[in-house]
């Protein structure tokens, strides 16, 4: 079966590089084709990379707390760029402070993210969701 392509990166002015490097490693190991944009990635960079590589999903990391501001409008820009319906995930420490994650999830759902992941989610969980959402058989 053909490899699915993921675009990953850390959005905004965020420089948390450790989780990003580990996700790259884990997704590659799990058989994905991973385009890693690293840290401090703008919405435009995510979109351009996804178009260029004909990606199946965009996985946005945000650790530093300002993710809520940085992520606004990403879904709309994807749509405008012709990436209608592309799978959009967000994870890390995506809001400021310890908040009820159900609430947080709702806010990001409303912003157009298919799934959001709470702090410290292990890569296994992300991979399971990807397999399911991208209809990958074992």
């Amino acid at each position, binding site marked *: 079966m053909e490899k699915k392509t993921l675009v990953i990166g850390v959005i*905004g*002015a*965020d*420089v*948390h*590089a*450790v989780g990003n*490097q*580990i996700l790259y*490693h884990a997704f590659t190991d799990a058989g994905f084709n991973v385009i890693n944009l*690293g*840290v*401090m990635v703008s919405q435009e960079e995510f979109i351009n990379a996804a178009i260029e590589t004909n990606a199946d999903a965009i996985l946005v990391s945000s650790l*530093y*707390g*300002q993710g*809520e*501001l940085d992520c606004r409008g990403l879904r709309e820009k994807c749509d405008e760029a012709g990436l209608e319906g592309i799978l959009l995930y967000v994870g890390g*420490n995506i*809001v*400021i*402070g*310890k*908040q009820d994650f159900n609430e947080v999830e709702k806010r990001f759902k409303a912003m157009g993210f298919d799934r959001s992941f709470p*702090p*410290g989610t292990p890569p296994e969980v992300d991979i399971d969701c990807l397999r399911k959402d991208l209809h990958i058989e074992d």
Partner: protein
Amino acid sequence: MNNIQNKRIPDDEFNAIREEVLKQWPTGADVDLNEAIEFHKALPEHKVFSKKLVDAKNKGITLIQPRAGVALINAHIELLTYLQDKGEADLLPTTIDSYTRQNRYQEAENGIRESMKEGRSMLNGFPAVNHGVSGCRRLIEALNTPLQVRHGTPDARLLTEITYAGGFTSYEGGGISYNLPYAKNVPMEKTIRDWQYVDRLTGIYEEHGVSINREPYGPLTGTLVPACISHAVAIIEALLAAEQGVKNITVGYGQCGNLVQDVAAIRVLEELTNEYLEKNGYNDVCVTTVFHQWMGGFPADEAKAFGVISWGSATAALSKATKVIVKTPHEAAGVPTMEANAEGLRCTKQVISMLADQVCTASNLEEEKEMIRKETRCIVDKCFELGEGDIADGTVKAVMSGVLDIPFAPSRFNAGKMLPARDNDGAIRILEMGHLPFTEEIKQFHRAKIAERAKAEKRSASFQMVIDDVYAISKGRLVGRPRT
């Protein structure tokens, strides 16, 4: 082009740059150096960072300091007052938001507006440039504890101007430590030059009788950084600062978790910084130390987080660091509430005080100290060599060639060839040497230590070991043993 030198910036050159810097954002216009110096001189002693540090150093005690910052002035005052009164903090911070750190003042302005609208801080820190000199002064006036600017800003010149004029008496950062862990695309020459400006400004205050404390940022990426790497950075930044006239310097180190290695690290850090400063003719600098509680990933459970915080506190006390930077039980989740922040402080205060009268004298302490000394000297001396005697020039070349190499750093200028991992006792060693300028003896030492662990774990040393170590503390261990 690589024409950077460790030379004091001439006054005319400084003034020319200064004019540009103060124009970067409207609030720059309010900075008046002479008036600011008078403001500092009028500050009571208990609001002056450098004095409190010198006093603690003389008494041999360890002060405690949190991290904290929110978008709006009143909320920030409330937060700091709480940490001072209910957290028993000896020193206070003002953590700057991430837009300001990237000089994106327009986005910071936006964040201030959003924060007012939403009724909660939408920024992860205090946008000091936007709040300007008068905004900063409101903090200084409201609090009875010295305040420090803590950030992660590659080009911090305007921030320094405004916060110094605003009455802050301590300032974290440096041209290496606030570039490689905090930026992606900023060349080393640029940050070293911009931080020479910060140091020169500090020197000017010093020459006018106002001693502002400068603190190179010790923990770098906070993730398995070997002491020799962060020590080399601290020493170099101390040298760069001293050249610009800085006289009160706090060098830092982030806890690794192995008691003996951590105590050895703090003791050697102070010793070597003094040694290199004196060797280079800076004889009147007062050097203190800061120990950072574990800077890597934390356990999500708050009770477990208290365990990590306490172990950092114990190590800080036993190492006799001048101050300790405190984590909170919310660390894994997000920016802490003020209550959680104060809890981290009080937990730390208890442990620090219980251990104030005890010393650590492990049998392998001297051995560990000697190893850190040798490794650090290899790196710093190589930097001098690369710069043909000039440490600024040498540092740029050292980063380029991987002689100075920071694990997990996001900067594209960082080599990223060196890989750290823990040994069987949990001390941080080096698995992959990269281009570290180590002697064969040192390399052998590291290989042997890693091999010992690999044997105990019945697996070969590989990147998987590093990954396991990155997760280990957040999963309740120090050494990332193979999952069974």
